[in-house]
């Protein structure tokens, strides 16, 4: 390639005003950064940014299909507001009749904990970003506590937000405990270890629709494949699908069956990566199994455990297949997740409400997961 000095010394390579005449390879070389980056930027713009912006417009509008296209009417924040006040409040948040004494106690306790958290933060030194992050997190925690206190703890039905959080926190906790337990067992020197590893991994590879139909049949106490078993245990005439809590629990059972293998595989890899000499040294020193787990194994797998839970929680917020297949969101709206709520609104051509619910889900997911990452995962990663 000609250097700048060489070009300056050759008039044939210079333009009429003395500018250098650039060859194609040189031009390409100079612009290569942009040429290589723009396809990726365009892809992101077309497939990520544009839909995001378009869905904001939809969330702020009422759309009606008509000949030759559709009519869009701007309605401001109405689609969001209807989830919190008015006749859609029951669907999204739940029914608030009267707060019970327990509800008040829990709400006040959580609020006090948040105040204490802020006091601790201020004592450690103030920074604006940290403060804003804590304001959002604390606001979300207090808001969700009030919602649960006003519904679950006060004997009222909750809405799709509560159901989604139930699937996320109860389901993921259960899946983590069982997945970790199974991984711990398979990391031991037991017979048939490889067989169990394969068997435990299979459910993860099955389509959620298949899982939904399978569990719907299994749970059918009246004519399902294990009806004799239900009859034997005296539950022949029990209808899990007609009972809100039984239906939610069955969906968590199906979801757990599918996702425990994910926790299992990752945690097994984490457990097997722990140096054996640490454990052997503890054994020599006479430590019990529980002490070894608490003092050696657990501290070393915490960062991986926190990360796998973060991934699982993000995934769990989007649950839709199982409640749709197993109960169609029923009985009532007892098993309807926020994603299913958005799907049903979309199915009814209420695109504005569908987009608004989807954005609320995004907001809840981001705040909870970002808080979990900042205050749990990052803390553990720093420690390790």
């Amino acid at each position, binding site marked *: 390639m000609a250097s700048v000095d060489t070009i300056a010394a050759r008039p044939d390579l210079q333009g009429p005003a003395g500018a250098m005449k650039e060859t194609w390879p040189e031009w390409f070389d100079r612009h290569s950064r942009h040429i290589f980056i723009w396809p990726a930027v365009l892809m992101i713009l077309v497939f990520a940014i544009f839909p995001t912006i378009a869905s904001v417009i939809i969330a702020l509008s*009422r759309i*009606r*299909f*008509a*000949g*030759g*296209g*559709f009519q869009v009417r701007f309605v401001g924040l109405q689609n969001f507001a209807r989830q919190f006040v*008015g*006749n859609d409040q*029951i*669907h999204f948040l739940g*029914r608030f009749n009267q707060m019970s004494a327990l509800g008040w106690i829990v709400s006040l306790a959580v609020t006090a904990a948040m105040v204490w958290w802020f006091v601790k933060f201020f004592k450690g030194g103030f920074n604006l970003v940290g403060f804003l992050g804590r304001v959002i997190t604390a606001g979300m925690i207090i808001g969700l506590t009030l919602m649960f206190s006003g519904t679950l703890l006060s004997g009222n*039905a909750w809405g799709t937000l509560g159901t989604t959080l139930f699937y996320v926190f109860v389901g993921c906790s259960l899946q983590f405990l069982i997945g970790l337990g199974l991984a711990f067992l398979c990391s031991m020197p037991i017979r048939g270890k490889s067989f169990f590893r394969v068997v435990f991994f299979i459910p993860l590879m099955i389509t959620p629709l298949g899982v939904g139909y399978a569990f719907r049949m299994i749970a*059918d*106490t*009246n004519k399902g494949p294990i009806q004799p078993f239900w009859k034997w245990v005296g539950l022949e*005439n*029990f*209808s899990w*699908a*007609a009972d*809100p809590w039984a239906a939610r629990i069955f969906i968590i059972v199906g979801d757990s069956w599918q996702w425990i293998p994910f926790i299992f595989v990752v945690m097994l890899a984490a457990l097997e990566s722990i140096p054996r000499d640490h454990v052997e040294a503890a054994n020599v020193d006479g430590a019990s199994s529980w002490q070894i787990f608490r003092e050696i194994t657990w501290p070393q797998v915490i960062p991986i455990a926190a990360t796998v839970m973060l991934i699982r929680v993000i995934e769990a917020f989007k649950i839709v297949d199982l409640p749709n297949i197993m*109960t*169609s*969101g*029923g*009985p*009532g*709206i*007892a098993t309807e997740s926020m994603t299913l709520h958005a799907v*049903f609104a*979309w*199915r*009814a*051509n*209420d695109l504005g409400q569908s987009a608004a619910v989807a954005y609320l889900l995004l907001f809840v997911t981001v705040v909870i997961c970002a808080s979990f990452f900042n205050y749990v995962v990052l803390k553990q990663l720093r420690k390790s």
Partner: protein
Amino acid sequence: MSFRKMMACALMVGASMFGAAASAGAGEYDGVTVRIMTRPGKVIAQRLIDRGVEFTAATGAKVEVAEVPFAELFQKIQTDWSTGTNSVDVGVFAAGWAIELAGAGLLEDMTPYVAKDTKLDEADIAPYFRAFQKIGGKNMLLMVDGDFQMVYYRKDVLEANGLQPPKTWDDYLAVAKAIHGKDMNGDGEADYGSCIFKKRNAQSYFAIQTVAAGAVQTQGTTQGFHFDPDTMKPMVNNEAWKAAFELYKETGKYGPPEELNFDIGDTRGLFKAGRCGLLIEWGDPGPMQIEEDAAAIKGKLFAVSALGWNKVLDRATGKLVPVTKENAPYSIDGVNYAPFAAFGGWAGAINAKSDPKTKEAAYAFLSYMNQAAQSNVDVTIGWTGYNAYRNSQLDNPDLWIKAGFPADLAENYLGAVKGALNNPNMASDFTLPGAQQYSGVVLDTELARYLAGEITVDEALANIEAGWEQITEDFGRDKQIEFYKLSLGVSNK
């Protein structure tokens, strides 16, 4: 299917293909493909596929049937046609949904095709269903089915227990209670007094309207039972609908444990196995009971066109008052009946944006489905999902006896169907823009929540009222008043 019936079908197919079938001639539509979208499964879709094969042999036009879930059918057709995707030429859906599509200019006006069609015999279509085919005086639809809900009872079970068929909804509860837990199919197990599909996002919202109609509508079809026709104010938050909701929930005490999660296919499986004493259904159980897999109930499932109420709504006060000849002129022996034209029937509509040759072939196919030569066979076969809508079907018991009906069942079945069709107080389903949202979304959701015990009946009715008002405001109240009156046959012009 019996050998005799198979032969009859084969003969009909042969006749269709070589003569009386399509208006079009052989090879006329070579190279044309008619793409149809409808609900999934054997019901409705399978007969379109079967008849499509015959139509292809007769005319050369290929018929493709795409099946989508019932709850997504309207939305898929509407978005396909309004956004210009136009991957569908014919939608086969609820007749009541067409008005919204026609209002948006998405439907082909079939009037010129009908005028030239010598084989359709439009006059043979019962007046109620003939009216469904027209919107603003133009033929926008062709029916392939005629629908309204009736109440069925097991004649043998009621007789064995010394019970009379129910006349009122209170009787329904009393009979269901009396027979609940009895063995109705001889398998030694307890069966159910009542079977109603109550699953959310399915078709539960039709049955609640069947129950409520007789308590709300007293002055004939033009009165309506969903809204005040002059203001479009919902007529739902009152004692009549409340009584209907409460009764509907109470039927669950005498039904299968999983009734809240039962779709229509589930209840059909149960009653065909002889496990239901009473049920609310469309016309299908009549012919379904003569199918091979329904041996337990063959000739035993009788129908009544509607059950009534001996108290009706006083619209001025929102209270229930005893039936008199003054407040319910069509009442009989102190009971007000209002058979509900649930769904109206499956009908075909043509995409206005399809190319002319395809539209022509599409019409020829819908006409072929509708013509007596085909439909008089199809309506007598239970699994097709097609119910009687032509006079030549309703006035001809021999047609049904030949299909395998015992004579007394044929008489009862046709009597019940005609009793509903001829009732001057027949209640219309939603046939206005937003029809699917009023019933399939708002009514369905709040009903499901009430049945699940999440909300009280008063909350459910208040939510429905607010939800319906929101839809009316969204579409424009004045326009909705106009459409609603049109759907009831009320005209100010």
